[in-house]
């Protein structure tokens, strides 16, 4: 269909983006790759000798590595679970003809605009603090012992904070999708005497499939590198309970100032991210085609 002329024009238009992103990827990544094979600690000047795979060896055999891998997946999985299910329920609720719908929608989307650092600080100090926090005050007024969030359920606490930030995003996308479901489709189903549950499972849910895929895709991209929330609240602890890959790389880079180790970690993170990307692409390929 497209002419040769448009083809070459298209290439020309695509070029700046591709070139810039390629440079943005390739230059730092090339340097990172180089750093990952030498001895390079910011605090210890000296010959940058070639050390082979030793940086990789130390990063992967770090006792925290496996835990970090698992934590990364748990944070992503947990957040996706909460935001997708919560988002569907909220979207269904907001789709109803409620009073003050506009204002409720404003309330629900607000967390999306909050700086991650601020969100973490607020949750840590104002909500989950076991002495002064709101949750502790509620627990005490009910005669219960306040829960020490970041010590007893650290990973859940982080996941909750992250999910709070991403719930609005999921809700909005799902709500838009829901509203595009035509009234006729719904009414037809109701006419047929379908029950509410079967309408949900046979009509609404399939209709939302595409939107859910998009939510999963976009959120995963951002959740792979969750960092500020962990740094502010638990610093990866207690132990390594909330250390994810991004945080582990951070510890190498900015606590130990071990650029070589951090570079090896960064390369490994890129490889892992690409595995996730391939996985996602399969999923998208099925659901986003056409």
């Amino acid at each position, binding site marked *: 269909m497209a002419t040769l002329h448009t083809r070459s024009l298209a290439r020309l238009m695509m070029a700046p*983006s591709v070139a810039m992103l390629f440079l943005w990827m390739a*230059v730092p990544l090339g340097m990172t790759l180089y*750093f990952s094979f030498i001895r390079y600690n910011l605090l210890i000047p000296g010959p940058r000798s070639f050390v082979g795979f030793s940086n990789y060896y130390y990063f992967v055999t770090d006792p925290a590595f496996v835990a970090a891998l698992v934590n990364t997946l748990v944070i992503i999985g947990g957040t996706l679970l909460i935001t997708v299910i919560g988002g569907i329920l909220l979207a269904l609720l907001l789709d109803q003809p409620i009073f003050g719908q506009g204002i409720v929608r*404003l309330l629900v989307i607000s967390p999306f605009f909050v700086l991650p650092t601020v969100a973490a600080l607020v949750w840590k100090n104002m909500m989950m603090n076991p002495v002064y926090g709101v949750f502790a005050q509620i627990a005490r007024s009910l005669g219960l012992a306040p829960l020490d969030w970041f010590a007893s359920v650290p990973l859940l606490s982080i996941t909750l904070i992250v999910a709070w930030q991403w719930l609005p995003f999921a809700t909005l996308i799902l709500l838009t999708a829901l509203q595009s479901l035509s009234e006729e489709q719904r009414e037809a189903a109701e006419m047929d005497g379908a029950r509410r549950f079967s309408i949900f499972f046979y009509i609404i849910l399939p209709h939302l499939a595409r939107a859910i895929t998009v939510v999963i895709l976009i959120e995963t*991209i951002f959740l792979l590198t969750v960092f500020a929330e962990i740094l502010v609240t638990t610093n990866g602890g207690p132990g390594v309970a909330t250390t994810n890959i991004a945080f582990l790389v951070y510890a190498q880079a900015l606590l130990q100032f071990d650029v070589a180790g951090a570079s090896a970690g960064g390369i490994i993170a890129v490889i892992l991210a690409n595995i996730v990307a391939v996985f996602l692409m399969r999923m998208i390929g099925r659901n986003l085609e056409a």
Partner: protein
Amino acid sequence: MARAIPTRRRWLLSLLAWAVGLIIFFPILWTVLTSFKTEGEAIAAPPHILFFHWTLENYAEVQQRSNYIEHVTNSVVIALGSTLLALLIGVPAAWAAAFAPTRRTKDLLMWMLSTKMMPPVGVLVPIYLLFRDWGLLDTLTGLTVLMMLVNLPIVVWMLYTYFREIPADILEAARMDGARLFNEIVHVLAPMAAPGIASTMLLNIILAWNEAFWTLNLTAAKAAPLSAFIASYSSPEGLFWAKLSAASTMAIAPILILGWFSQRQLVRGLTFGAVK
């Protein structure tokens, strides 16, 4: 548009929706309220919800310590500048991907997105060294360009999903009329794509505004945006709940208000082609 449902059920649903909405909004509301309390009242148990002595002293103290306006200006410049740059480069790319797709277009788009999956800290030192050598450390120019690169994949992807919805026939028709490419873009494509571009812009302003890693690590005094502003309050000495709340409120207020006022445009942009 409202479907006919019994009033009682409507009331119940409204009540439920409001309750959920308020719970989700509560942390923000609580922060704003606390910012007007004294430090002593901020930790009072049981808490005083509305009937406390309202004060502005926390805001005064925060303003005395750091130049809020300067930080906000930096944030605005970085967020807006990087978004406009990203649009400038992203619109043609998205146009090409949508109207002249090749076999590799999908892979190319996916690859662009995957550039966002690398933990930034992994390439901090290389970027830092490059910025140092190019004299870009602590400059708005450097950060603007960097944030453009960080968000470009999202821009391209979002615009692509819009442009794809524009029927190609319209363009063909315009071309038949002998419209030039320039005219094609200005008179045909732009009006149809405007809502999409607007929402892309909004989302990216928000993302750039809320980015905290690069903006914190590549700035010192001159180009420091709000993320650096908040980093000087994250754990001051002693009782600091009220001051923290004031600083937090100041940091999120501009973007929250922008978000509220433009939520309709934003919502349309957030679909990422999820709605067909």
